[in-house]
């Protein structure tokens, strides 16, 4: 099909919830108090590593209507919040409440009352005595101190990945270059703080409403701890005020479901910003060494990684993430031999977890900063070096991962370099003595689902064409704000010819929508989108067949219409007749099991001006080039990219969750934790390369996560080029830049 003849694909259809959102009528969980619900607030530990010596709830419980559950009441089952399917065997080290607080913000008790205010007042009356132990805040010594934090005897969680002859590669190398690079612990900063509602329903069903990313994963976690069948847990995805991975792992869901089940009352848990910062999840900080063996011509022979990943207080999905980082290392450049060693340690800080890119921003920031510094030291042109080593279309992933697919990363780099004026602007400029301007870029890749990884990836949907010609796509979608439901409606509309405004796409409800691996792994457009396309085709086929039987004449489907003997049939009328006369409803079901998992690619360019006295960095120009196969909705794609840039600049320059040596968080709200705001955001340019990815709906592939992956490295590379510095400890705060400038002078 010629792209230009699409009705909906690539078009800027207005998202279905936009009108409600601009009117303030789109309600989040905390906007709608549930009748007769107890509102719960969590009594959080003020200490980083402490055991509860005693807890006295008598005064608080004396207030009428107050209910308190503490760590003394909980089931002893340990779980891992990053496990989203039975049997994944993520090491369990977390309980829903705890008498051993392992970070400031750890959950000691749940205090409930009919209003949040009353619950907070009651919480202030609970007296807790702690036995304080030393905080674990330094990655390098965390493994040795593990015993003070956890009683399970695990010092660290190791993982490795190796292929090719790494020793041969390094011994044959003309050059061996290495760098040590650190990426920060970052707050997701979804504007909606965390909340969850659990309601006991008849038939021993617990209904949980949560703005989450994997309803079936939430269901699994609750079943595991409460020891009740999956069928008795109904998880409904609630309206979501942003997540960025922060709401991917279960955080308060299990606790809330347990409390509601125990008290036989609806329980709603709400948090403030400080509570969300301290007690939910963060991006995992990573620190480590990358070493590259290169031949005389600048071809990569091999690469070694030795990385330490900070899981925070509990392991969570951080081991998964550490392995994922290693898997991503072989999918950008042709690396004949690779050795990746990762070590996950637990520290007495807020637990890490999934965060937009799931390790990609960390691993590619590390390699792309390293690649630039290496090129500078060896005298290689950073563009030329990369062009030589970047993967070409349909190359194999040498680590054994899925084929790379229709890779367009070389085109991204070439078109970007030309459009950005790379050659013309390569020489740094100095103005008024202290303002240093330089450019930088970074390449990256990210996946499209779980195919050919250790995790299962499939989606099951049904499309029902109704008797008025409208349609419902029953799908387990999690709308995060990215526009996924509208994009899927565009796909359905394109296939069926049904007007997008008449298509409803459901979100996930474990009781009524079919299985889907969840909104993770950048799989939604590539896997769920393709499932939507295929189920639409199945529905159209069914409709055509039924119409043929109804009319006893050949009916075909052409360009969005049912046609019989050259005459166009109206869809609604035809469905009505089929239902009345044939007693058949037009509802097709399809289970899509992807057989491909290609890579998406992006190359970002930045021009920055660094004030060497204030250490402040201004981004003058920014260009993002993405290989996305096909934009389903170009405006949505651009929106993802702009947002990804905002998040990446933060990670490069100012966002971090620092702790003092006692494990006290230095940033507890947005006064100290600064996100990039409007005045500091550049007006970015975007180039989309749309060459159609096989296996994706109309050739589409992922964009939401990858859009933030190359940003930090592009900015850091620009700063390093501007100053001639070798900064590798992110974020590049003003103080670090000023210090680097002082060191350069020496």
């Amino acid at each position: 099909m010629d792209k230009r003849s699409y009705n909906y694909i690539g078009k800027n259809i207005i998202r279905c919830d936009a009108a409600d959102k601009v009117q303030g009528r789109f309600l989040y969980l905390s906007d709608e108090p549930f009748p007769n619900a107890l509102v719960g607030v969590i009594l959080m530990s003020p200490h980083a590593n402490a055991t509860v010596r005693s807890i006295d709830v008598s005064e608080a419980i004396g207030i009428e209507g107050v209910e308190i559950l503490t760590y003394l009441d909980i089931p002893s089952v340990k779980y891992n919040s990053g496990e989203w399917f039975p049997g994944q065997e993520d090491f369990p080290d977390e309980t829903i409440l705890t008498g051993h607080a392992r970070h400031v913000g750890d959950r000691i008790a749940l205090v409930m009352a009919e209003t949040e205010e009353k619950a907070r007042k009651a919480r202030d009356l609970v007296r807790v005595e702690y036995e304080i132990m030393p905080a674990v805040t330094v990655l390098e010594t965390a493994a040795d101190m593990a015993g003070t934090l956890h009683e399970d005897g695990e010092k660290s969680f190791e993982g490795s990945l190796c292929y090719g002859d790494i020793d041969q590669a390094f011994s044959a190398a003309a050059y061996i270059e290495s760098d040590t690079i650190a990426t920060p612990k970052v707050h997701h900063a979804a504007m909606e703080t965390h909340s969850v509602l659990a309601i006991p329903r008849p038939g021993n069903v617990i209904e949980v409403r949560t703005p989450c990313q994997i309803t079936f994963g939430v269901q699994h976690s609750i079943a595991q701890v409460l020891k009740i069948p999956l069928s008795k847990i109904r998880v409904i995805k609630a309206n979501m005020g942003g997540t960025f991975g922060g709401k991917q792992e279960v955080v308060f869901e299990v606790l809330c479901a347990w409390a509601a089940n125990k008290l036989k009352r609806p329980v709603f848990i709400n948090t403030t910003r400080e509570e969300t910062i301290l007690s939910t999840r963060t991006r995992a900080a990573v620190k480590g060494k990358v070493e590259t063996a290169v031949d005389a011509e600048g071809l990569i022979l091999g690469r070694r990684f030795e990385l330490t990943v900070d899981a925070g207080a509990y392991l969570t999905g951080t081991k998964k993430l550490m392995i994922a980082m290693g898997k991503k290392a072989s999918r950008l450049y042709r690396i004949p031999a690779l050795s990746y060693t990762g070590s996950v340690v637990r520290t007495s800080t807020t637990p890490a977890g999934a965060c937009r890119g799931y390790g990609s921003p960390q691993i590619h920031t590390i390699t792309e900063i390293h690649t630039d510094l290496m090129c500078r030291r060896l005298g290689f042109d950073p563009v030329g070096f990369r062009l030589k080593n970047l993967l070409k279309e349909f190359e194999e992933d040498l680590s054994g991962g899925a084929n790379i697919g229709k890779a367009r990363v070389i085109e991204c780099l070439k078109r970007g370099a030309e459009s950005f004026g790379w050659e013309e602007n390569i020489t740094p400029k100095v103005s008024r003595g202290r303002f240093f301007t330089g450019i930088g870029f970074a390449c990256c890749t990210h996946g499209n689902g779980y195919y050919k990884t250790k995790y299962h990836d499939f989606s099951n949907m049904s499309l029902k064409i109704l008797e008025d010609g409208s349609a419902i796509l029953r799908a387990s979608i999690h709308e995060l704000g990215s526009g996924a439901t509208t994009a899927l409606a565009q796909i359905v509309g394109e296939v069926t010819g049904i007007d997008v405004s008449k298509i409803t796409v459901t979100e996930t409800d474990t009781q009524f929508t079919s299985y889907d691996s969840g909104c993770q792994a950048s799989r939604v457009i590539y896997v769920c989108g393709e499932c939507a396309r295929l189920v639409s085709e199945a529905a159209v086929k069914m409709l055509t067949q039924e119409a043929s039987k109804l009319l006893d004449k050949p009916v075909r489907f052409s360009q969005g219409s049912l046609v019989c003997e050259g005459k166009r049939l109206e869809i609604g009328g035809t469905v009505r007749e089929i239902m009345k006369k044939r007693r058949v409803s037009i509802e097709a079901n399809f289970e899509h099991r992807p057989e491909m998992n290609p890579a998406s690619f992006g190359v970002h360019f930045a021009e920055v001006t660094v004030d060497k006295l204030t250490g402040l960095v201004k981004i003058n120009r920014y260009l993002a080039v993405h290989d996305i196969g096909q934009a389903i909705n170009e405006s949505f794609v651009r929106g993802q990219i702009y947002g990804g840039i905002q998040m990446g600049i933060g990670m490069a320059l100012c966002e971090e969750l620092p702790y003092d040596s006692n494990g006290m968080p230095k940033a507890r709200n947005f006064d100290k934790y600064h996100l990039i705001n409007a005045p500091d955001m550049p007006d970015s340019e975007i180039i989309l390369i749309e060459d159609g990815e096989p296996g994706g709906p109309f050739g589409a592939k992922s964009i939401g996560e990858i859009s933030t992956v190359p940003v930090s490295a592009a900015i850091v590379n620009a700063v390093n080029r501007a100053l001639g510095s070798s900064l590798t400890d992110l974020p590049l705060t003003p103080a670090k830049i000023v210090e680097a400038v002082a060191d350069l002078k020496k």
Partner: protein
Amino acid sequence: MNEGSNGNKELTMIVGVIFLKIELKVNGKLRRAEVEASERLIDLLRQKLGLVSVKEGCGAGECGACTVLMDGEAVCSCVVPAFQTDGHDILTVDGLEENGELDVIQQSFIDCDAVQCGFCTPGMIMSAKALLIKNPSPSREEIRTALAGNICRCTGYTQIINAVETAAERIGECRR
């Protein structure tokens, strides 16, 4: 302190808690309320008046999600004492529509795809409203400054700034 000696504030005592009676205009309508001393405007709006379009993102005046207009000027309702709104005029996003028609800013936010998760949207629109009341044809830089106190994690602000620019152009066209 007994009632009557309290300046011009009327106090009532309900189960040991002192409430202040206030009267304010919200979205054009006169409203009366009893508020506690350290009650915030956002609590009054959300809990007592049901205006849940006003979102709480930080509770510290740092994110702007709770922005409303007080006498035409943008304020963070999470750091305004409710009692100080006595006699004042409050406008939330709920009060923007006229005769069932969206405000030009709301329509521009839809048309420019300036909305993603939507949580910052009502506050963002109110900051834009305050700007356009004072300055109907702002530059992109002036828009950035006006929105500096409104944090958005989804959009990178670009489409939001485009939307405010578009709204300003549309207002300009109407006036011509």
